């Protein structure tokens, strides 16, 4: 177009980034890629190929190798072979490699960016200005983490071999989020990139070579979902990290249940974007461009549910629609494009279907009045207002450039609407009122909250969700613990303790005591109406305990739910109550010791020691209640990323038989210290320590429902607890092998699980029996981003 003509129209024209270098890179490799195993690219005979396309124009980019079982074995074996050497070289040495990788990512930054855009369809601006810089940043951060590991995480060691399966929406960034922490902590990895978008992972493999990374430390297998499945279920893998859909995450959780693998899942979302009437409305409108139109809305934490306060909704919606009409969609290589191509025609169809079907239930659709290319996989920016929680569009993740919206009246209603979802990943809150913002952020169920901003990421701040958005964090100190295990962890098998048997004779001269269940602060009879005799080690009947069943569990969870305001009580108050429990237990020290002796046959001195240690544990967690501080992460914005420790919610705990009192107190205390409420199933063999303890709890000002105790055979209630969708986490310390079934059943709501996999834990040991490991299990880290500045 001629200059004088442009002077009239003032169009932007096109500013295409050249794809020549990236295409040449592909061509030089024959447009046909192998697998990266043990430091070299291999293409074993007989492997099938599959094609990877540019979604913007459907052109073939390259052929990739479909890995087979033998390749998975080879990759895992290479990773296993390299792991010990990689870990033992030490954090400082590993750091040098991570630093080299960071530098090489920067040196090849444009090649990475262009290749990513070619393969994925995201605008070059995003791959160039967001993805690749964050990738380099991630490796820098973790180069530092490797150095600091020895001093800052002295009780931890690598898990071993990590199987990592990543999605197609941020191919290279998700690779970095997986590989950097794994390597920093001394693990080796087998990574399976998404079928649609493997090219940058293969380029990354080359820079691993360039950086001189020891062979086998990073292995990359391309292929479809079945490769991913084979990698994660491989018996020689110690850790599974997955980012992707909730459906696949659920499948993986089930597939590896009972294998003793550590797991983190970063899954779907339907994150709320809340705008109050005192917000900077124009900025909040602009924020939506970054929230739902970043990466064509194919972002797990996309702000996809808009809630605007009623008084400003009309203005806000009008401004939003006119903003949409200024977006530019088209060739992702054009540097003046806001929205590129949907990753694949399959995903495009999925978006279309969801929107069209969803609209049948109502909603008012605005499609941006802009030119949308007819060739290639493009979907126009869309806003659907008047969508209510009852509508599918408000509940289901669309994973496309489609925003749905509704309104609210009060802050409380905003919270209620925001939390009315199976997901819990992120949230954006827009208000100029700091009181409101900081009140709301903790109330929204999510792992990341952004105040007056959205979609901010940094290696120094953890990212991850709760509910069906998964569990575990990536980034920050909190993310490192996903790749380590405590070095004090026992490797001895846990022995099953059979309850003592005996006759129905009771101890002479004693008045009958009826241990009951303890639910909602009251002693209640079991629903079943059955009781089980408890015998002393010498065979005398010590009492009858209720046989708890699924309905008792249901009632206990109801009570725990009703007591959730415990989370809002002050840490000081929780500490006071823990001290008070300790004090009251101390008063009855002799009695508890005698009971332990009677049940277990333990020597008097050792029984007293168990009571004393239990009192100590209560003191420890009373101490921690107001000292397990969060952090203010050093993220590169003018502002704060506050990493707050929040309670997990309702924790179900199946206790150990090993130390009937100590084993329960050691888990109960950290749980309630951090603000959780719990449903506790005590030792099966020696349940009377628990039923005695509720009397202590009753006299210690503990609010009703914070601790609920259901005596039951673990096998009678474990499935109910693991499957209960109101239970947020389940801890298992029992000896009759329920670890696998718990992990399998936990997929109903993707609750966090902490199971022993049949290994023992020495409750007397100060490390195995107490400490930050317990506190981490009892908390979620929520990162609240608060930019500031006038």
């Amino acid at each position, binding site marked *: *177009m*001629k*200059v*004088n*003509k*442009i*002077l009239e129209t*003032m*169009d*932007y*024209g*096109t*500013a295409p980034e050249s794809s020549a270098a990236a295409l040449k890179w592909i061509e030089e490799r024959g447009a046909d890629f192998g697998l990266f195993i043990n430091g070299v690219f291999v293409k074993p005979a007989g492997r099938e190929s599959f094609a990877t396309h540019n979604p913007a124009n459907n052109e073939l980019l390259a052929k990739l190798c479909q890995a087979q079982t033998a390749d998975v074995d080879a990759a895992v074996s290479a990773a296993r072979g390299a792991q010990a050497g990689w870990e033992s070289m030490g954090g400082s040495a590993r750091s040098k490699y991570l630093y080299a990788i960071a530098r090489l990512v920067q040196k090849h930054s444009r090649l990475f960016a262009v290749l990513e855009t070619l393969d994925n369809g995201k605008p070059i*601006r995003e791959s*160039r*200005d967001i993805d690749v810089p964050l990738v380099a940043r991630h490796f820098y951060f973790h180069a530092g983490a490797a150095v600091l590991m020895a001093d800052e995480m002295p009780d931890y060691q690598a898990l071993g071999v990590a199987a990592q399966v990543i999605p197609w929406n941020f191919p290279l960034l998700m690779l970095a989020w997986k590989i950097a922490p794994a390597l920093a902590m001394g693990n080796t990895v087998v990574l399976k990139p998404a079928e649609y978008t493997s090219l940058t992972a293969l380029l990354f493999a080359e820079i691993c070579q360039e950086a001189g990374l020891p062979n086998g430390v990073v292995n990359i297998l391309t292929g479809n979902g079945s490769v991913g499945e084979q990698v994660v279920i491989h018996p020689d893998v110690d850790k599974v990290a997955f980012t992707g859909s909730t459906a696949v995450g659920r499948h993986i959780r089930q597939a590896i249940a009972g294998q003793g693998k550590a797991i983190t899942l970063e899954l779907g979302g339907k994150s709320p974007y809340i705008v109050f009437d*005192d*917000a*900077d*409305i*124009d*900025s*909040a409108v*602009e*924020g939506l461009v*970054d929230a739902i139109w970043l990466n064509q809305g194919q972002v797990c934490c996309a702000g996809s549910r808009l809630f605007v306060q009623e008084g400003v909704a009309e203005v806000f919606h009008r401004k939003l629609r006119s903003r949409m009409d*200024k977006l530019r969609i088209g060739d992702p290589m054009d*540097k*003046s494009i*806001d929205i590129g191509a949907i990753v694949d025609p399959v995903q495009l169809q999925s978006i279309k279907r969801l929107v069209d079907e969803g609209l049948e239930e109502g909603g008012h659709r605005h499609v941006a009045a802009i030119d949308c290319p007819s060739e290639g996989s493009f979907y126009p920016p869309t806003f659907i207002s008047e969508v209510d929680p009852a509508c599918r569009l408000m509940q289901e993740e669309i994973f496309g450039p489609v925003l749905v919206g509704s309104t609210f009246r009060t802050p409380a209603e905003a919270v209620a609407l925001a939390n009315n979802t199976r997901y819990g990943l992120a949230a954006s809150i827009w208000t*100029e009122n700091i009181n409101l913002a900081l009140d709301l952020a903790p109330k929204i169920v999510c792992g990341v909250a952004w105040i*007056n*901003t959205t979609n901010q990421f940094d290696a120094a701040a953890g990212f991850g969700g709760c509910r069906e958005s998964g569990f575990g964090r990536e980034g920050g100190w909190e993310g490192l613990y996903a790749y380590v295990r405590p070095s004090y962890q026992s490797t001895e098998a846990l022995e099953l303790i059979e309850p003592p048997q005996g006759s129905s004779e009771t101890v002479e001269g004693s008045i009958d005591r009826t241990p009951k269940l303890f639910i909602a602060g009251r002693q209640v009879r079991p629903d079943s109406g059955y009781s089980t005799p408890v015998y002393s080690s010498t065979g005398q009947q010590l009492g009858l305990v209720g046989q708890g069943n699924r309905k008792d569990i249901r009632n206990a969870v109801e009570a725990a739910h009703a007591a959730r305001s415990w989370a809002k009580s002050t840490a000081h108050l929780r500490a006071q109550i823990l001290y008070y429990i300790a004090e009251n237990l101390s008063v009855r020290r002799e009695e508890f010791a005698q009971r332990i002796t009677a049940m277990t046959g333990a020597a008097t001195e050792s029984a007293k020691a168990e009571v004393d240690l239990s009192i100590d544990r209560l003191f420890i967690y009373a101490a921690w209640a107001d000292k397990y501080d969060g952090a203010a992460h050093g993220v590169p*914005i*003018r*502002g704060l990323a506050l990493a707050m420790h929040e309670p997990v919610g309702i924790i179900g705990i199946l206790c150990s038989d090993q130390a009937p009192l100590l084993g329960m107190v050691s888990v109960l205390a950290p749980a309630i210290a951090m603000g959780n409420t719990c449903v506790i199933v005590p030792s099966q063999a020696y349940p009377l320590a628990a039923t005695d303890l509720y009397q202590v709890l009753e006299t210690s000002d503990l609010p009703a429902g914070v601790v609920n105790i259901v005596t039951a055979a673990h096998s009678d209630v474990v499935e109910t607890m693991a499957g209960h969708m109101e239970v947020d986490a389940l801890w298992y310390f029992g000896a009759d092998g329920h670890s696998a079934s718990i992990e399998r059943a936990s997929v109903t709501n993707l609750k966090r699980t902490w199971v022993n996999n049949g290994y023992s834990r020495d409750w007397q040991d100060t490390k195995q029996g107490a400490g930050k490991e317990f506190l981490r299990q009892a908390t979620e880290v929520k990162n609240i981003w608060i*930019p*500031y*500045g*006038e």
Partner: protein
Amino acid sequence: MNLLQRNPGLPLDLDWVLSVQANTSAIERRCKTLPGRRSIKKNHQAAWLLKALTCIDLTTLSGDDTEQRVRRLCRKARMPVRRDLLRALDIASERVHTAAICVYHEMVPAAVAALDGSNIPVAAVSTGFPAGLSPYALRLAEIGESVKAGAAEIDIVISRRHVLTQDWQALYEEMQSFRAACGEAHVKAILATGELGSLRNVARASLICMMAGADFIKTSTGKESVNATLPVSLTMIRQIRDYYERTGYHIGYKPAGGISKAKDSLNYLALIKEELGDRWLQPDLFRFGASSLLGDIERQLEHHLSGHYSANHRHAIG
């Protein structure tokens, strides 16, 4: 380009003014990412640079200004780009001149004379520019003197203290009286944004000045330590957009001070296009208050045509 109806102003609406918010971090994020979102290359870049050039209020505001110096600047305003460059771009040379000349009152007659027959208006900075702290009556009188001397545009400075003390009524009345004193001359309200303390204040002061009848709102005198920035601009033009949406009146925008690079001018134009729309990309609604920007644009135009980086001395100074 249609002729616009002049903004008559509105009664002071404090409910509206006080509802205005401006979140600094969010505004900065928008401005930081915009240059990466819009890239203007090749012929488009040349056209956009010409557009920027025609929106310049070519300015000299120095204590050592003389009539001869001003005449030289006016000649540059009439012929800002070498003829051979314009020919190569196939642009009629009479189309290309700066939007105005901006001077102190004493230089107005010289500028008017030098621009005779050019249709280039003379703008006078006024009202005790730059601090705006001379006696109120003198400030009003100064406007009248400049109008009488032939200035078609008056760049007034507001009393920053009214903003800093949140005395919106006083600011409104001051601006109203300045507007009245201007008569037919168009009035640009200089907010001196670098001295207002917050973007929220900038936003509210912008709105007040429009309500009081400003034709243009302008960032700075060029004498503050911080002058025009993209965040300040975004803040002000969003108020212009709201004012237009509520009243139908177009208010002009003039960033001034600190814009000296051709690349910067493209970012400003893109910001205007994105937030206000194409209608504002005309000199009746958009100006750059600048002096050295022109030289960089000339160099970039020559580079566009020749493929070689240019040098200052190849272009006439103003």
